[in-house]
């Protein structure tokens, strides 16, 4: 049984990592986006296995669905599939990769040298499952204030996005010209 778990995990993890790597190295931005969708979907499966069905659903709907569609939309809109012809900072790539590997190794070293983490498996009945209800309970009781704050943040972001991308209307352009002539 353990093996089955490992196999499932291993397969999914492999898919995830490969997709992530592909996302980074893909020349075409559209491809990158599609690989990212793969990563996110497989992560959703992980979430499901970790007793978080609500988050898994949200992950699929929000990330794999909405956000990625937005990405694709912008890529298509700008025609930016192949941006970045000039390579200014060539030396940066190896350095970045090296540093990342270094930090991972250091982290590993750190973890291996700390006390091992005891994981106690609980019987199914005692596991708190992240159902919509449970999350809702938590959100509207303990986390009410952050929840509201985050909703305002969302609103602000929405307005900001609208303001930034808004085209100047003709009326305004005319006003601007008038002011300059004054």
């Amino acid at each position, binding site marked *: 049984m353990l093996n089955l*778990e490992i196999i499932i995990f291993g397969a999914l993890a492999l898919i995830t990592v490969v997709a*992530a790597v592909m996302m980074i190295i893909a020349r075409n931005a559209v491809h990158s986006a599609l690989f990212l969708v793969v990563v996110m979907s497989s992560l959703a499966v992980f*979430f499901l296995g970790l007793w978080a069905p609500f988050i898994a659903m949200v992950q699929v709907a929000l990330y794999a669905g909405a956000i990625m569609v937005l990405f694709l939309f912008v890529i298509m809109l700008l025609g930016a599939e192949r941006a970045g012809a000039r390579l200014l900072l060539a030396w940066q790539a190896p350095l970045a990769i090296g540093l*990342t590997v270094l930090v991972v190794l250091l982290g590993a070293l750190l973890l291996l040298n700390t006390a091992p983490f005891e994981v106690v*498996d609980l019987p199914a009945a005692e596991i708190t499952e992240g159902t919509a209800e449970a999350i809702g309970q938590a959100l509207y009781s303990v986390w009410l204030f952050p929840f509201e704050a985050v909703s305002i943040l*969302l609103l*602000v972001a929405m307005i900001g996005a609208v303001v930034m*991308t808004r085209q100047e209307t003709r009326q305004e352009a005319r006003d601007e010209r008038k002011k300059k002539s004054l």
Partner: protein
Amino acid sequence: MSNTSFVALFPLFIGLSVVLFSLGVIGVLVRRNAIIIFMSVELMLNAANLAFIAFARSFNQIDGQVFVFFVMVVAAAEVAVGLALIVAIFRSKQSINVDDINQLKG
């Protein structure tokens, strides 16, 4: 799928999270396409989410999941604003190459 057993793989989940996060970092540092950089950031966020969920499961607490929820909301907001920024920049500079945007050069 089993109810309980994934928890035994807890270290692996953390490891996976680390790998994905590192890939995100490399993506941010290596790619010049602003959109891809953005996607890499999303990847990093997702990696963190995975760690959160794994920890929530192992500690048997719902708070981790709630936090993931918040992270997602923030990510959504960030994407909205970020993409709007990219669009705005593209309008003025006809490019989304971050290396072209260096007005702050010292």
